């Protein structure tokens, strides 16, 4: 049993690119759900159009990389508008279903055999990330003992954490402003806001676009760091996990999504390594009759589920959340 390795992999994941993807997506969800109360369960869809926007432009249409990035950023905005115009009228729970359905539709279409020429079917697309990789200034990895990254990850992380930081600053600046106040009041009662002369639809649309844009950025970043887009990456499960990250950190808090994503991946990776080690080798820590190594990787997910439940039970407002706010609708 090598506890050092458990910690290393946990910390590396918490800081690594995968956590960044979740942080970016969760920042978007925070704008949607945390501040505006839009129950968007289709964040994976926003990510998918961002990623596919880039990949299709570069691979299928053979346009330059930077145009791909531009289109990847436009795509979630367009999706937000197309999706928002009809659905922003819906009540929160109906909106959730409409967005979940949209994300699934997108994913299925991206993966369909019928459109294989454009989207690459279930295999997805790859071969658009060269330019990004060529910019990598690091020639070697980093090993600080407790965290360890390869050169390409370091580059992804530099870009990724910069994006996350910029995102947080933007969210912070926006949410303390009257604009943010309008969003938060829409979360409480749309009609009241309307009666005060605010164009609720317009604000909701702005929030949907902004949050969707962060989703798109998460998707593009995902696509770049992994150098391939595959439709199954953008399933509902991803959105669930992103929500998990958001709520661990605490909704409607600027740093909530970031810290949440880090904790989520710390646990996912740490537990995975721990149980992987505990069940492998000639004389495993946990005897095989109790747990086989196949079961070990399942246990991690069981524990994540359990942890999520316990967190919500004992700290329903998340790490940063405000307990007082929750108590309001208690009765």
């Amino acid at each position: 049993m090598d506890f050092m390795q458990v910690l290393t992999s946990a910390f590396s994941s918490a800081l690594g690119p995968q956590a960044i993807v979740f942080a970016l997506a969760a920042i978007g969800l925070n704008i949607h759900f945390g501040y505006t109360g839009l129950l968007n369960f289709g964040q994976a869809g926003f990510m998918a159009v961002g990623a596919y926007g880039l990949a299709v432009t570069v691979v299928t249409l053979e346009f330059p990389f930077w145009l791909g990035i531009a289109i990847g950023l436009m795509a979630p905005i367009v999706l937000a508008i197309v999706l928002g115009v009809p659905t922003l009228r819906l009540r929160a729970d109906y909106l959730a279903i409409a967005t979940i359905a949209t994300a699934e539709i997108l994913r299925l279409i991206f993966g369909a055999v019928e459109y294989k020429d454009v989207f690459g079917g279930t295999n997805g697309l790859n071969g658009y990330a060269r330019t990004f990789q060529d910019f990598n200034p690091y020639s070697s990895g980093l090993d600080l003992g407790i965290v360890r990254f390869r050169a390409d990850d370091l580059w992804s992380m530099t870009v990724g954490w910069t994006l996350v930081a910029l995102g947080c600053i933007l969210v912070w600046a926006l949410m303390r402003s009257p604009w943010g106040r309008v969003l938060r009041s829409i979360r409480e009662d749309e009609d009241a806001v309307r009666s005060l002369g605010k164009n609720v639809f317009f604000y909701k649309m702005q929030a949907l676009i902004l949050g969707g844009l962060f989703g798109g950025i998460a998707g593009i970043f995902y696509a770049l760091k992994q150098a391939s887009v595959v439709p199954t990456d953008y399933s509902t499960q991803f959105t669930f996990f992103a929500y998990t990250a958001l709520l661990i950190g605490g909704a409607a808090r600027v740093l909530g999504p970031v810290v949440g994503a880090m904790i989520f991946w710390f646990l996912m990776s740490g537990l995975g390594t721990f149980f992987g080690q505990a069940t492998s080798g000639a004389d495993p820590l946990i005897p095989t009759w109790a747990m086989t190594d196949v079961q070990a990787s399942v246990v991690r997910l069981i524990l994540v589920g359990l942890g999520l439940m316990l967190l919500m039970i004992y700290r329903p407002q998340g790490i940063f959340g405000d307990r007082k706010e929750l108590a309001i609708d208690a009765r």
Partner: protein
Amino acid sequence: GGDSDDDGGDSAAQSEADGVLTFGSLLPQTGSLAFLGPPEFAGVDLAVEEINEAGGVLGEDVVHVKGDSGDTDSGIAPDETDRLLDAGADVIIGAASSGVSMTVIDKIMNAGAVMFSPANTSTSFDEGDYAEPDLYFRTAPSDILQGAVLSNLLIQDGKQNVAILARQDSYGETLAEQVGEGLEAAGSTVAATVFYGENAQSYDSQVADIAASDPDAVLLIAFEETTTIIPQLVSAGVGPQAVDTYFVDGNTADYSETLDAGLLEGVKGTIPGADSSQDFKDRLLEIDPDLDSFAYAAESYDAVIVSALAAIAADSDAGSDIAEEIVNVTRDGEKCTTFAECKELLEAGEDIDYDGVSGPIELGETGSPTAASIGIYEYDGNNQIEAVDFIDGNI
């Protein structure tokens, strides 16, 4: 491989020669492909065991670290890959699904480790960035060959109007396409090609499409959902006893436990791989007595053996060195079929041509097999398979 503490800060986790050849397996333990995992893991474990029994590689026992590829939904593959690389993996055996492989291939190649998939059949690994045999290899024969064998088998049996029901993923799509092309070129018609999504909960409409096309044979390209689809085919009047049915490697398995006796009698299926002899199966069962399918076990086994032989040939356990030898040890040279035998030859300075349990394994320009042996099996009254023929072929 091994412990990389002494690697220094500048080349963290880069696959380096450290004397110990470490295999990382990135194969499905969770998620929707989890059923594919056990035989693959067993294949890897068996190979590792045999290698070490034969004295290991470069004088050291080889090491096997297990990783879970999940499915692409769960998104844990990149993370697990990091873990494997951190554990010093020089060769990563995996992933099973082409989609998952896509999500980690760049990561692995950038780390300088070999990625050796036992089950990727997608043609995209022979194209674009991955066309060169740099660090990516596979033992799964390309779908082109299996497609040829299948369509040939159907024509041989005089089928004129074949309906194809296939899983929508890189596996099902390519195979369906290859068989379809083969059939049409050889003068048969494809009555219908129908796909179902991996999340499908009911196959009624697809099965109805098949039935409506009035086929004289049904080709079912599926994984374990076969056990769900067959009864539905029966209900729709196009079950195996009404219309001749053909299986592929994904579903040519033992259904004595899961389907009613006699249901599959006469169904034919193909599995790439030379006669995966009973002996090999028995050895696998010693490793994992619970195995009920052997899909890709032989390919996994061979991937490990080939990498180990390449390491011996390169006299190094660094990924990039191994990669340079992998194609060589599979072709043009003294034929040998077991690790011990090949190792002896190599140590005697001979050029070898390893022929494995999954077939002759001649890896080509792109790191994929160019020759393979494909077995044809037929079901008996107990829904168990029996080999009827083995066909060798080239691409």
